């Protein structure tokens, strides 16, 4: 039997992720940009919903919605991210199916659907669905199709490890790095350190970055970089909770927690 306090720690981490995601959404105010663009706040919305759901799965007292409601919500999110991944693949090529920035979120959403649908409560908990799990996990239900749980866990671990590497990497400026990235007045992201492999603007690495920015450009040209406003000035990306590395950190925490939940219910 897993001690309840271990599950509570993971639940607390999820609550932090939920709070951070909520603050990011409030600070960025995507709804002011119109419905179509607001829909693109998908990643923070997904983080918020998944973190709340997982906290409820880990600790009974944090349970919010019925299991059926969560299943529907995550099925919709899965469909949305599947659409985004296909769009990414059309723009950036087949590699985006696994390496695009929406691919991990598709896996996260899919894993959530799987957990809610495949959960089997232990016999002593009756057929209470996920309430058996929330009752809590230390009462241990299991997942049907454990092979699928294992596959999901492996993929989640893989993405988490990759994110950790990229977050700590020397070429992570402006995206993963804890370092400051500057944004030009026009909105272009200017990277002060050369891209891996030393590619300049137009090099493959830079093109890839540009496409990941949804058509924006990344420049390594010192002349252009010098025109950027100083760090901390209006227009910088280094605005606390809105910095991209915060979202990536949330994703890592969520991926590891989700893999943990899948493995302990195999």
């Amino acid at each position: 039997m897993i001690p309840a306090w271990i599950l509570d720690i993971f639940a607390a981490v999820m609550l932090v992720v939920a709070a951070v995601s909520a603050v990011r959404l409030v600070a960025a105010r995507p709804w002011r940009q119109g419905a179509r663009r607001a829909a693109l706040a998908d990643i923070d919305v997904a983080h918020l919903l998944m973190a709340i759901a997982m906290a409820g799965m880990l600790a009974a007292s944090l349970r919010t919605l019925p299991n059926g409601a969560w299943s529907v919500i995550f099925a919709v999110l899965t469909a949305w991210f599947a659409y985004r991944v296909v769009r990414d693949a059309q723009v950036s090529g087949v590699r985006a199916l696994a390496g695009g920035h929406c691919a991990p979120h598709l896996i996260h959403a899919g894993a959530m659907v799987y957990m809610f649908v495949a959960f089997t409560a232990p016999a002593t908990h009756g057929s209470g669905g996920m309430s058996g799990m929330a009752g809590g996990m230390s009462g241990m239900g299991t997942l049907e199709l454990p092979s699928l749980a294992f596959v999901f866990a492996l993929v989640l671990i893989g993405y988490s490890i990759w994110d950790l590497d990229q977050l700590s990497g020397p070429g992570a400026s402006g995206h993963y790095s804890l370092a400051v990235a500057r944004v030009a007045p026009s909105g272009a992201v200017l990277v002060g350190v050369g891209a891996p492999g030393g590619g300049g603007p137009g090099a493959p690495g830079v093109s890839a970055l540009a496409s990941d920015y949804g058509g924006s450009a990344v420049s390594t040209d010192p002349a252009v970089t010098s025109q950027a406003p100083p760090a901390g000035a209006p227009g910088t990306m280094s605005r606390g909770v809105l910095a991209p590395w915060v979202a990536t950190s949330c994703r890592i925490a969520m991926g590891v927690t989700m893999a943990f939940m899948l493995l302990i219910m195999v």
Partner: protein
Amino acid sequence: MSEIAAAGARPAWRTKLGAGAEAATSAPDLRRRMQLGLAGIWLLVGLLQYQSFMFSKAFSQMLAGTASGSPGVVASPITWDATLVEHHAVLLNTIFATIQLLLGIGIAWRRTVRLALAASVAWALGVWWFGEGLGMVLTSSASPVNGAPGAVIIYALLAVLLWPADRAGRPAPFTAARAVGAPVARALWLVLWLSLAYFALLPANRAPQALNGMIAGMESGEPGWLAALDRGAASLVAHQGLAASIVLAVALVIIAIGVFLPPQAAKATLVLAIVVAAVIWVVGEAFGTILAGGATDPNSGPLLILLALTYWPLRAAVTAPARTGASAALAGTDEGTAAS
């Protein structure tokens, strides 16, 4: 349209949120990718250690069981350790799991990769003794099909071979040679795979029903498809213990000497190594029995595959790079970490 102008078309709030920005990459080199593979396995092991089974008495009984058949000098500390774990199961198992989780995270985080790899060697050696009874190599029942010489010792071996440094001098013909040099790397490979061949030929493993019993014993608690696979494989080797052991041993010897052959032949033997490791992992180890619950690790199969990849001949042999300021300071991994 200039790149800057194109950038201006993006909604400002999306830049704030960093949507899309997270995917930017600083592509790791081959050795770094392998380190990440090792990190992933450590993370998996750490998470598996949090399973409810590990907090029960069954875990300490499993530890005590590894002492069986080992000499007293090896068995006594294992028995002491198992007793300690039995009395402090929650505390000690939480510590074990967290250490392994941190090892995975530490290897994946570039600034701590050296510390984590060094710690993983020490931890792996400890687990090899106290958790795996030295992989049962001092007993008569060690078999490559059930994980000998102990999966965890391969973690230590990988940590050494993937150490983020490059030897000055001759270029490394494969990734595993970058830190320790080709002769040492080849010698380690030879010892590992020849020892596996030796274990395959032990009397206990070449008995008519030995391999059959080993494989059939894995099906309990496994999903239907895997249990069926195990049943099928077991029936293939029924009463064929000697022949199967000889075939396996010959394959393992070929693999052992493969890294001394020219690159094309070496690649063929490495493919054989990957295939053999995959078959062992699926059929002999049932994915480390993870799908049946209660597994502490994925067993030796994936580690042998990762190890084989570290010996894959490189198209252009790697020479020790010159230290460059930014990358060396930040990475602590591959770039600019040539040993002087």
